[in-house]
Structure formats: C-alpha cells, structure tokens
C-alpha cells in the first residue's frame, strides 16, 4: 500500500478517538476541521490535480449549505433528504458555471472564479428569491433524524463529519487509481502532450469541477448541520482564498499535504486563539514561508503510484 494511504488511515484512527479526549470547544474545532478538510480535498481535485485555478470553492461549499438550510427551514424537508440535493445542485451549477470559462488559463480562470464568488455572495445577501435570508442568513436548521433517532449531540455531528471525510478519502484513493485521476495529472503537467495522447482536456477539467463541487456541497450540508445556521460570510472570497491556500501550502494532490494544510491554516490559528487577532500571523507566515522554502507544499505529492509487479527498480 502507498505510504500516503497508511498515513490517511492513521489519521482516521487519531480523529476517530479524538472526541474521547476533548472538551466541547475542541470538539467544535475538530468537527469544523473535518468538514474543512473535505472542502480542501474538493479544492484539491480541481486545483491540485486538474490544475485549474479555482478561487471560488466557497461557492459550492455554500451552495450545499444553503440547499440544506433552505429545503429544511423554508420547505420543511427533513435534513436526511437534503443531502442528495446538496450534492446534485452544486454539481450541476459547477458544470453550468465552469463550462464557459474552463478553457481559460491560470490567472484568467482565477479572476473569473472570484467573480462567481462575489456574485454568489451578492445573491444570498440580497435575499434575491426570498429564500436565503439576506445578510443574516438562515437559522434554526433541524437536527439529523434517522428512523426517529435524533443525532443532535455534538459528538454525533462530529462522527457524521468523520464519516464524510472517510468517504472523501476513499473517493480520492479511487480517483488516484483510475484513468480519470491520471488524466487530470496529465492535463495539469502538460496539456499539449495530454491532448496529443487523446485526452479531452475540457471533459476532464469539467469532471474535476463536477466531482470537486459535489464533494464541497456535501461538506456544506454538514456545515449547516453543525452550526444549525448558514450566513453569507462563511462562504465569501476570503474563505475561497483559504481553501486555495490550504492546497498549495499543504501540497497539491498530496493526501497528507492537504490534511496538514487544513491543520496549519485552520487549527493552528484556533490553538493560538488567546493571542486574539495576532493569531492570524500564523496564517500569514505559514503562507509566506512555505512558498519560499517549500514551493511544492509542506508535504509534496510523490508520483510513482504503479502496481508492484512493474517495480523492477533498484529500490
């Protein structure tokens, strides 16, 4: 088995027992860490793997959250039935939105996706369809109820988020060992060569956007459940910048890298909470130092993920 999978499993074990040793405040941080890790992986599919400079991942995270909130609060749909729409709606919107801009390169795509994020925030803040609750957002989201059992405790929400992250890691593993995951890397590393090998660049970039947005939507739904509320500022451009940065600081396309990135960018500032706003120094310094010292991330991806029967190397 690949080393990074072993690390991922070790990580899951640590996170699995974490609630036994933590108080309520840390359990909340832990839950958000799990959810943000899922969003970071969704960003990694688009940015780290397919190499598309998506700076609006908070849009799809937010779409998932708002789908759950609106369906539940405005239409009384039980939470459990909002999961699927919270995945499908971001997925469909990602294809519609990314379609016309997917051919843009690097910085051009970056600007276009920031544009999406700004429009999204405008729409939800202005309560355009009388659904989003304006600048205050939506409150009073139900708890998850399955067969009449309510999963309302903090620990229950933690473990639901845990399952979501485990599922995401499983999908990442499957993606890596498929023609789809590889095609994303080929496009990322040299799109001319990839096309000449018969790879439809547009298709695989859209595939990355669709898959990444669906996963972000699932994370959004969980986020809405955790806080039993949604509001626009949780999904603004600054949040998108954070997810983008997590991937680059941690290590594009590297499973341990993305987890470390989420830890450094989200959990560390929480640890230094007593230093008030100065804690964001950690955030800023981590960004600067990583880019100077480790331009490929704290834990860079290692290629060479090939079946053992082909490994005839010296090692």
């Amino acid at each position, binding site marked *: 088995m690949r080393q990074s999978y072993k690390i991922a499993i070790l990580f899951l074990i640590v996170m699995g027992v974490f609630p036994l040793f933590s108080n309520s405040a840390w359990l909340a941080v832990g839950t958000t860490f799990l959810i943000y890790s899922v969003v970071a992986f969704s960003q990694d599919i688009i940015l780290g793997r397919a190499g598309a400079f998506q700076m609006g991942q908070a849009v799809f995270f937010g779409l998932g959250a708002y789908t759950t909130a609106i369906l539940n609060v405005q239409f009384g749909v039980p939470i459990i039935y909002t999961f699927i729409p919270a995945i499908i709606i971001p997925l469909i919107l990602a294809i519609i939105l990314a379609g016309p801009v997917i051919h843009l390169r690097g910085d051009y795509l970056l600007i276009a996706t920031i544009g999406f994020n700004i429009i999204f925030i405008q729409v939800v803040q202005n309560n355009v369809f009388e659904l989003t609750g304006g600048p205050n957002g939506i409150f009073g989201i139900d708890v998850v109820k399955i067969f009449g059992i309510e999963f309302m405790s903090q620990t229950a929400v933690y473990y639901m988020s845990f399952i979501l992250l485990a599922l995401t890691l499983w999908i990442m593993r499957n993606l890596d060992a498929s023609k789809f995951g590889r095609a994303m890397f080929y496009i990322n590393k040299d799109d*001319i060569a990839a096309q*000449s*090998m*018969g790879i439809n660049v547009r298709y695989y970039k859209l595939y990355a956007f669709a*898959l990444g947005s669906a996963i972000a939507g699932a994370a959004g739904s969980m986020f809405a459940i955790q806080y039993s509320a949604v509001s626009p500022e949780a999904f603004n451009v600054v949040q998108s910048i954070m997810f983008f940065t997590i991937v680059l600081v941690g290590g594009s396309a590297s499973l341990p890298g993305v987890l470390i990135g989420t830890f450094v960018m989200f959990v560390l500032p929480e640890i230094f909470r007593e230093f008030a706003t100065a804690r964001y120094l950690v955030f800023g310094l981590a960004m600067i130092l990583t880019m100077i010292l480790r331009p490929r991330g704290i834990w860079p991806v290692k290629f060479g993920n090939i079946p053992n029967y*082909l490994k*005839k190397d010296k090692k």
Partner: protein
Amino acid sequence: MSDFLLEIKNLSKLFHGLVAIDELNMKVKKGQIYGIIGPNGAGKTTLFNCITGLYTPEKGDIIWEGKKINGTAPYKIAELGILRTFQTIRLFSQMSVAENIMSGRHIKSNQRWYNGIIHTPSMQKDEKTNWLKVGELMEFFELSDYATTPAGDLSYGLQRRIEMARALAAEPKLLILDEPAAGLNENETIKLAQTIRDIRAKGVTILMIEHDMDMVMSLCEYITVINFGAKISEGEPAFVQDDPVVIEAYIGSDEDE
C-alpha cells in the same frame, strides 16, 4: 479508398500572413517509413502540428484513411490512431516513467465515468490489462529499471524512448516522430534506427522529421524535402540525395547538419 493512409493536398498554413506551409502535397502509404527533411525553419514541425490538430491549416486538406480531418481536435486525432512525439520533449516530467507511458493507454481504456469514484471488477481488470501493456513497452524500450523514476530526472536519450513508448502505448496506426535522433549519440542513434524498424515490423506506419542524413537515407523508403514551406523534391532516398535542387537548398542555406 486508395492505399494511402495519409494524404496531404495543397496544404497551406499562414502565421500572421507569413507562409509557413505553401501548397504542400504528399502521400504516405500504409507500412512505409516516410521521411521529411529540410533546412531549419522550413515548416516541418508546423506540418506535424497541422496533421495532429494543434494547428488548423488555412487551405487544403488532410485526408486520413479517405476522410478529411483538418480542424479536428488533437484528442480526436489521437483516437483516430495518429500519435506523435515532440521535437522539444514533452513528458509529464514529475511523474514516473510508467505513469508517463500509461497516458498512452488512455484511449484504449474502457473505464466509465463513475469509475473515477467507485471501482468495479471490470474496471480493475481494465486497469491491470493496461498496466501490463505498459510493462511490455518498458521491456521493449529497456525502461523497466526506471519504472518509478520521475521521467524528468532521466537522460535525453531515455526521455526520447519514453516519448516513443508513450505514443506506442496507444497502439497507433501512424507514428509521427519529430527529430527522434536529436541529442542522441552515435550508438543511441544506431539503436534508435533498429527500434524504428522493429516498430514498423509491428505494422505501424512511420512519418518522421530528421536531420541526421545517414539515418534518414538508410531508414526511410520515401522522402519529401521541404524548404520555405514548399516541397522542393520527393522520391526514394537515392533520388533525393542526388537531386541538385536538394543539394542547393542545403548548401545554399547555412548547413548545420
């Protein structure tokens, strides 16, 4: 249709009004090793870029197995069975040798859209078949020892072999080689010539640009000579070699080969 695999008819390509290819005609037979020679800047690589869909020609036709293919997207050209290597090597340099060659199996893989998320037994079988094919190609090109080495860390000669292995992995009907001997030493060049013959023996037609005259003359069965984008001569090596027009083009320009 005809017994020609690839036909180029009155092909012209302009860059900002400058003529890069000028009313070019040529016909490649199935099973041939076809050479294109000409001084630097004659438009040879531009021609390859037109055939492989990276450029769209302004005029003329590219006919593949009797069908017009100009303007077709590069990835569709590859699906038709036209694969290429690049003059300036274009490998996925951070990725391992095996992964690079695996990219050639992309069009041969029959995985469905959901297999990127969920694996199925048939998908795993497909995956294994393709990796085994990569293994065979690594054997053929003597690359097995470098299976997990990043392609970018290897020597020029090895990188050229990886590019050929990658193109062959797609089981092409036509293999287009853009200066395959550039940067190789004498031994490597001799070996390359044998490799090209071996590839042809597998039924692959070969179209190549090459500056190494000894290699071109000994290897190719038919040659087209291009200068300033236009064909100045064509024929079998013996004929082209003694064609005064060709000699003049090479001596008239500053000859660097």
